[in-house]
């Protein structure tokens, strides 16, 4: 008997990069986050081989959830081939051996920055959203410790006041992405900088969403079948981006969130933001049999 027979060989890296203690902490914090929907749970947030602000929070969650059979999809601003999505996908697969996919329907785990795919997610799928700033109160209270207390007291007066002020000044709520939303009637959370278009997709969704901010060291979650209500006045309805009537110039897909592409003549053309949905639309048009999932929006309207 010797030390080498008693121990594993030294390896430069653990399975899935993070060591067991880091994963255990994240598992615990995810459970807490699921138990109190929308409430931010502080976690140690280890360094990973990517710069902070580049999805390290989402990455730590993905690395904790992943196993060799997890099929992973990674998107950035809706696109699978965006450089950072490519980089994260390559890293996840390299350290875990997990298969990757571009098709939302095939994915078990979707890590995303700033978008939720247009096809409805199922109960067996997990969405991991990268979060730059987990604190919806930051614009009204930059101090984290005070903001924490405000959440504890459900002290959201200032948050509402901000909306009031915007309407008074601009005639409408000016919040673009990251629309603050009440989760389960108790905690206001940021849904991460997804467009307003995507926020209703979280409401009573079948899937679990985990939102993780690596730099700010906070995890929050929207468990399946949980209320997510954008903060709006009773008499000023929530408005998603006016993309319902736009058509993708590449694929012809219509009624989804679009990227605007400015043209030389001063006009704009549009391309579907969920790039893989666009690819599937083209494939089908060309006669390739393609499976589509049900989409959240039909004819540009949330169904």
């Amino acid at each position, binding site marked *: 008997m010797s030390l080498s027979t008693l121990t594993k060989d030294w390896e430069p*890296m653990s399975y899935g990069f*993070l*060591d067991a*203690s*880091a994963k255990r*902490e994240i598992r615990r914090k995810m459970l807490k986050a699921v138990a109190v929907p929308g409430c931010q749970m*502080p*976690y*140690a*947030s*280890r*360094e990973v*081989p990517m*710069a*902070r*602000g*580049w999805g*390290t929070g989402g990455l730590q969650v993905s690395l904790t959830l992943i196993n060799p059979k997890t099929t992973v999809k990674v998107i*950035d*601003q809706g696109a699978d*081939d*965006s*450089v*950072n999505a*490519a*980089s994260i996908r*390559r890293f996840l697969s390299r350290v875990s051996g997990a298969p990757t996919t*571009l098709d939302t329907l095939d994915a078990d785990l979707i890590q995303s920055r*700033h*978008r939720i795919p247009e096809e409805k997610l199922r109960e067996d799928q997990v969405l991991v959203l990268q979060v730059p700033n987990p604190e919806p109160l930051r614009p009204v209270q930059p*101090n*984290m*410790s*005070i903001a924490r207390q405000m959440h504890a007291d459900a002290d959201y007066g200032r948050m509402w006041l901000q909306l009031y002020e915007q309407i008074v000044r*601009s*005639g*409408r*709520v*000016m*919040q*673009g*992405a990251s629309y603050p939303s009440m989760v389960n009637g108790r905690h206001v959370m940021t849904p991460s*900088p997804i*467009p*307003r*278009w995507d926020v209703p997709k979280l409401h009573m969704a079948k899937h679990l969403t985990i939102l993780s901010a690596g*730099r700010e*060291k906070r995890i929050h979650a929207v468990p399946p079948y949980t209320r997510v209500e954008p903060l709006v006045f009773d008499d000023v309805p929530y*408005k998603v981006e006016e993309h319902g*009537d736009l058509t993708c110039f590449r*694929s012809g897909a219509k009624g989804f*969130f*679009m*990227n*605007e592409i400015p043209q030389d003549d001063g006009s704009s053309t549009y391309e579907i933001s969920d*790039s*893989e949905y*666009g690819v599937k639309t*083209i494939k089908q048009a*060309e006669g390739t049999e393609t499976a589509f999932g049900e989409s959240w929006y039909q004819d540009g309207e949330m169904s």
Partner: protein
Amino acid sequence: MAYVATRGGERAIEQSERLFRSAMGEITEDRVAEIKKAMPYLIDRVMGEASLYDEDLAALALAQTGGELFEAVLVLRAWRTTQPRLHVAEPIGQDELFTHRRISAAFKDIPGGQVLGPTLDYSHRVLATEVLNGSTYAPEKVDAADKPSPAYQPSVAVWQAENDLLDLPERDETRPEDIPDVTREPLLFPSKRAHTLQSLARAETGGALALGYAAMRGYGQAHPTVNELRLAEAEITVTHPKGTQFSAGRVKVSQAEVVSKKGEKLELGFAATMGWNEVKCISAATLDLNSKGAEKGSATEEEFYLYHTEGVESSGFCIHFKLPHYVTFQSSLDAMRNAKAKKSPKPEPAE
């Protein structure tokens, strides 16, 4: 096929990384050894910010990143965080530090004496351009003092406390293995003392200086006097499972104590880091000194300076703005256009 999804992204990032690395050429053991030998202060700075004491790994990180300091610290931290915590060394007192340099600005002379040690403080900062013309710059020989200064020195603050000039912080009897570790748990506020000191120890030097300097210039309540600054080596004493204590070697450490007058007593600010980094220690100690009672949101408030001197986070967030943000931009644009349309007297174009 009319449309082939461009998968150019993967190729592009691969090639851009190659381009970056090709500029540095081959990295060999020799290069790493040379960096370690030639740049001890840079190595120290990187080790301190990475909170990982390993000169070889630090030199490797510098070689691998071409000296892009934020990247070097990140690669070391990412390595460090996956390593198991095997053991916690015994605490060490100031009077047990093997001291190379120790100065006090508070007194002309202090018990134990001023020990100037290695420093560029009084050098004339003149570039040795002759080196570029082929001459070798050879350091002049050091003449040893007649009477070597003692390697172990008492603490100035302890002397001051004995003379009722200041109150030492209460002795913290937490067992070493129970000291909270900021690399394994989140930093929350009000911060645990251990977390504060650990965060300052790994603070980014430039960030600590910027905020510390702001306090020194008058955006703080207290003006620091350097009570004691030390460059030293600390013995790493570990305990064998059988109970025997032994030294696992020595690491370079630096620490600063700054004081300012508060009523009839002196108030103390403290910071220490791995490696020798005087600017960081003095700045960080100044922040510590100013922290008590600082207004929320001021530069000397704990939450403010601990968040904003975290180099891996601040640099990462800064460079993340290079990532595409067109979804968020599109979303704001929509709100802006809609608001503008509402205000403009023109009727909206027919659909």
